[in-house]
Structures are given as structure tokens and as C-alpha cells.
């Protein structure tokens, strides 16, 4: 079954796009898009960068660390922005969480 509904994104979540939401570069229009059932979303540059890092293994905290280092920006501000963006996507039903791994 697909991931749970009503995901609450936090620093420790390890989100990933579900199989039915595809991040793709649209060569014709020269924009990134997320393809989903009956929807085409237009993520901004930051959202694209975040989503490319969200592979179901990295936590939201890890993603924020990487972006903070790359842009030499305050981590807490980035973390807050990333959570808002991902939560918006989750509320639309286009984000899932990797299940706990049994190690």
C-alpha cells in the first residue's frame, strides 16, 4: 500500500515522492514539474533542490544541513522553510515517508 495519509513533516522524517508523483524536467517549457494524478505542479527552484535530496533515506534534518552548507545560510531558517514546503506537498497527497528499516 502507499504511504500513510496525513503525514506530519518534522526534522526526523525521511520523506520521498510516492511512485505516482514524478519530478521531471519539462524540456519543452524549460521548467521542472511534478506529475501527479490529474495534476501538474510547478515547484520553484528551492523545492526542486529539496525534492532531489529527499530519497527516503535522508532526514529533513540532513537535507537542511546540506542546503545550509551549500548556501552558507542559517540552518534553522532553512529547516523551517523546508518543513513548510514539504508539509504543503504532503497535504496535497504527493509525499510519503520511508518506512522504518529493520536493521
Amino acid at each position, binding site marked *: 500500500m502507499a504511504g500513510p495519509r496525513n503525514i506530519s513533516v518534522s526534522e526526523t522524517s525521511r520523506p520521498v515522492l510516492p511512485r*505516482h508523483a514524478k519530478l521531471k524536467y*519539462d524540456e*519543452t517549457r524549460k521548467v521542472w*514539474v511534478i*506529475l501527479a494524478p490529474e495534476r*501538474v505542479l510547478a515547484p520553484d527552484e528551492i523545492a526542486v533542490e529539496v525534492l532531489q535530496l529527499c530519497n527516503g533515506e535522508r532526514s529533513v534534518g540532513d537535507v537542511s544541513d546540506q542546503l545550509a552548507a551549500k548556501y552558507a545560510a542559517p540552518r534553522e531558517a532553512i529547516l523551517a522553510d523546508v518543513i513548510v514546503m514539504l508539509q504543503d506537498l504532503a*497535504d496535497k497527497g504527493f509525499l510519503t515517508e520511508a518506512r522504518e528499516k529493520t536493521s
Partner: protein
Amino acid sequence: MSDVLGNPMIPPDASDSLAVLEKQRSTAETFGIPLAVLLEITHRCPLQCPYCSNPVELDRSGKELTTEEWKKVLSELAEIGVLQVHFSGGEPTARKDLVDLVKHASDVGLYTNLITSAVLLTREKLSDLADAGLCHVQISFQGVEEGLADRVAGYKNGHRKKLEVAKWTRELDLPLTVNAVMHRQNLHQLPDIIQMSVDLDADRLEVANVQYYGWALKNRAALMPTVAQLDECTRIVEEARERLKGTLAIDYVVPDYYALRPKKCMGGWGRQFFNISPAGKVLPCHAAESITGLDFESVRSNHSIAWIWQNSEAFNRYRGTGWMKEPCKSCEFREIDFGGCRCQAFALTGDAANTDPACALSPLHETIFKQAEREAEGETNRFLYRNFAGGTLESENGA
């Protein structure tokens, strides 16, 4: 994050895909190529729903594009910038090459939706479709229990089969949309249809009131809801949307006879939508062939799909506002709703360039509204079932 494509069948009002497309110059120069295209790959269907959106004159199987022709269409669509395709019909699974077509669409990078009645699917076939890259399944339901649902579809045991396929869909981890077409004879089941969608673990529910063209127009007296029914329907949808936020998204289409302003049909003729018929005609709307006197070009012609979209006479005839007569011509809403639906204007007034009578400014609005009210209160409940023979009237005892 902006949603640039609503339901492609019934595009959203304000922020349509053109906002994104017109900034970037795409293959078709003035009007950007649509993001999603509806492929009606066959008109064959085991169901006989009296409101079928297919034209009354159906394409016979001998006229259908071949597998190779459809593959060529899919490649061409991907090349010119289409992002999603909806495999529809008729019943798309009636074509034996569907898995092959879905695979090809995925290979060329298209996002694929299946719009199906589900009754011909086996679990194995659905699994093959998922393996071929199918991204989303939309199943039509005619009601919430088999007595009514099977009667509307004119197909025994269909409802039971649909429930089974919906379950397989979720087991295969495919997102599910329930498509419920609503009318006078099933609107009372709406609360249960919403619950059924939740129970089936659907992501989306389309509550689509019948739009009265083609088959549905022939069956209008048996289908038209009362104003009171419609108000109740709207209330139920609004309540459920709030209650099920994050669990089930609900799209809602009202019958426009009772509206004061017409719908922006297809987002405006030739602006953001086209579909391809079983025989390969490129159409501005799936009902467009009901407008006589328009010549629609085929993918079998010497022209590319982008050329047909951009330059063909049929697409340009009702594009923009230049074709309008009064009261549309000087109307402040002319670029908001583009005068409503051309097919409805043609069906009800005999001229597709007239204002859609759904609009309160149409001289025919009052007459049409009264007629709908009268039919809604009437006793006619027998259906004229959709088939290749031009329709068969339901027998008195409902068989």
C-alpha cells in the same frame, strides 16, 4: 507551489496551464501545447450508460487507429511537450494492445492515467499495466449498490467487479480515483458514495453531475436533478471536503443548466485541451463532433498534431473572442468563460457561435431552465441505453 493543471476534463477557472505555457514559447506558437491529452482509444464498451460522453455516432472498431498508429501518436505527443495522457474510451481495456500502449507511453516519458469502467480487468492484466508504468487508475461507479448501479450501466454484476478491481488497484500501490457520475436517480446515494471512496482507500473522488450533450441530452428527462437535489448535493460535498481534508480530495462538477454563468468549457475552445478519437481525429472537446459543419483533421493526415492544434480550421473557428456574437461580444466576462460550451450552444440553439444557454444572458436561458425544472419533476425514469445501434430503450420493468 502552483497547481497548473486541474482536472483536464473540466479545466479550472482562473489559473490555467496557459499562465505557465505562455511565458515559454512552446512548439505551437500562440497556444501552448496542452499538458494533458485525452486519448479515446476505442468506443467499444460493455457498459451502456445513458449519459455516456461519447458521441451518439460511435466509431466502429474497423476505424480505430492501429497499435503502431497509436504508438506514433504517443511519441509525437511526448515530443511536442504533452506531459500526461489519459487512456480512455469507450472502455480502453477493450483494446488488446493496452499494455503495449502504456509501456510505449512510459518509455517516451509520458505520465499515464487509465480511465476505466474496470469490468473487463483481471488482476493479472492490472498488474501488467502497473509493470508497464501505469501511474494512476480512475474507475467509474454508477451508484453505491448493485441494484441501481448495474441498472444505470446496463451491465449485470458490474458494480461487484468494480469494487474488486478498486481493491486490486490499491494492493498494487496505484493511486485510485473514484469517478461518480451523478443525476436525479442516484444523487440520494452521494453520502454513501463518499464513504465507499474512503473505504476503497481512494485518493480522489470526482462528483461529476451529468453534462447534457449527446447521449445525456437524449436522456435528459430521466437524469435531470431538481434544484433542491442539487443544493443538497453541494452541501454534502462541502461538508465532506472539510471533514476529509488530507484523506480524500473531492472534485465537484455541477450541472450548468441551473447556473447563472456558463462554465469555461474546456478552458476555452482550443486553449488548453484536445482529445484524439478512436479513428484519430484531433478534437477540441470530446463532444465536438456533435457540431456539424466542422471538419476535424486526423492524425492520419499529412499534418503533424502540433500543426493541427495550431492551424486547423476547426481549432481556430471558436478560439479567442473574434467569432463571438452578442451578447458575448461586448460582455465583460467574454474572456472569463469564453461564452460557455460550444457543443451545448449548438445542441440547444443550432448555432455553436451563440451564447451557451446555460448563461443567464442568453435569450434562451429562461426557457431552458424552466424545461430542466419540468423534466426534473417529471415521471420519466426509463433510460435510452448507449450502444452502436443508436440506443435501446430500457424495458418497462427495468431490464
